[in-house]
């Protein structure tokens, strides 16, 4: 996996990006999440956005999922 600057990400970095992508997917599609699941996942995704942004992957905005 390469970032927008063409830099190859490390294995650990890739894992973090996959976590973020998985969380965004669940928050977009998961209609059956309990409040504690959704709100804690949103906090986690807001924090992981900083990682993905800092890794130059242009994560865009998250307002549509509530973060």
């Amino acid at each position, binding site marked *: 996996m390469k970032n927008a*600057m063409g*830099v190859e990400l490390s294995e650990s970095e890739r894992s973090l990006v996959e976590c973020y992508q998985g969380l965004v997917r669940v928050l977009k599609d998961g209609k059956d999440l309990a409040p504690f699941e959704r709100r804690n996942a949103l*906090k986690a995704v*807001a924090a992981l*956005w900083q990682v993905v*942004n*800092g890794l130059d992957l242009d994560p865009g905005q998250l*307002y549509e999922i509530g973060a």
Partner: protein
Amino acid sequence: MQESPYWNPRHETMPRDQIEALQVRKLKNLVAWTEARVPWQAKRLKAAGVSAESITSLKDLQRIPMMTRDEWIQAQLEDPPFGPLLAAPQEAAIRYHLTSGTTGRIPLQVLDSMKDWEWIAEMWCYGFWGFGVRPRDIVFFAFSYGTFVGFWGAHYASEKIGCLVLPGGNMTTEARVKQILTMKATVVCSTPTYALRMAQEAKTMGVDLAGSAVKRLILSGEPAGSIPATKRLIEEEWGAKAADTAGMTEVGTIMMFECERQPGGTHIIEDHYIEEVVDPETGEPVGYGELGERLITSFGRGFIPVLRYRTRDLVVRVPASGCTCGRSFDLYDGGIRGRVDDMKLVRGTNVYPRAVESIVREFKEIDEFRIHLYTADGRQDEIEVLVEIPNREGVNADRTVDELAKALSQAHEGLRFGCKRVENGSLPRFELKAKRLQDDRIVIGTAGERRVTA
């Protein structure tokens, strides 16, 4: 693995051409987001012939219209409370903040989402980590935790880093000093003015702050954090290193920080902002080493896109090589040097409050001061500096007042300063941004020209 001295090592040490490439890419994204989500801004961009596709280099930035505080306020007044500046619905926000209002003007109001709020803390992490704050630290905040954004982001940055946070809101100065000592705080965050205020209080309490556990002070909210004499005084009083930072409500957080090497300036967080320096009169760019007004473009808060905002802050930008820390982020030498509208003309001589403060702080026996401008005989501008000098052993207050008047005059082309000692405790104390200049002149400059505002 060895601990990194940088919060984001890849970005903070990136070669300049890569920083610029990153900024161009982010600028393109920001313009696209703004065009799509903020019709008020989109109209301004379109009128200037700017579109996301048309941005190919940093030179294209100059085609984007500058935005002033007055325009922002006007937009708020026409469409209260936030103006037509929001890129997301209010329901997506978790935070509301406004400007400090220390100048008596209408405050700017802003919103942040969960991700934006996290980003605000992220920017402070650059500064805290860069100045050597680590998870083992105990951080005390001398901050009142209100709607002014101030140190809010720094509080969350400290939590993010893993520090033990002592939120010192709603406390007397004495109670704060006591808690700093009893909890063995290693880092203290405050305005430069309040750092000195706490040092004075500690003296009154008979406490030796320099012998405390405090090793670092993180200063913000006033330009004084980079005035050498003020900083030196703070460091001596606390027996600790002090770092300057600067932020603004318009972007929600800091844009610059001083690293552990203390190069006499602040690094610009260039992977999250584009900072330009222009002539405040013409708006034309000025080069490295020249004094000018900073403009900011922020890639952070998506809720309210900020493009080429005129800050009115005066700065001198120098290359990153001015610091030995290894960061490739350029510096503002001397931090924020003042405000474009700070300068006062007194009998033909320019007087900057920062320059006056830098001289006053050379006299350690002065606890507090005020710059007072007034009109004598209904026609002549006068300037006086009122000082508080507590009675201490070995201090000759009359001599201090005379020497101060002489030093101020020498630094201002012979301009006469009427320095006066006033009763201890009679001058105002400040926790947030200090306001030490009082302009009571009824006539400014030439005879007959009336003062418009207080």
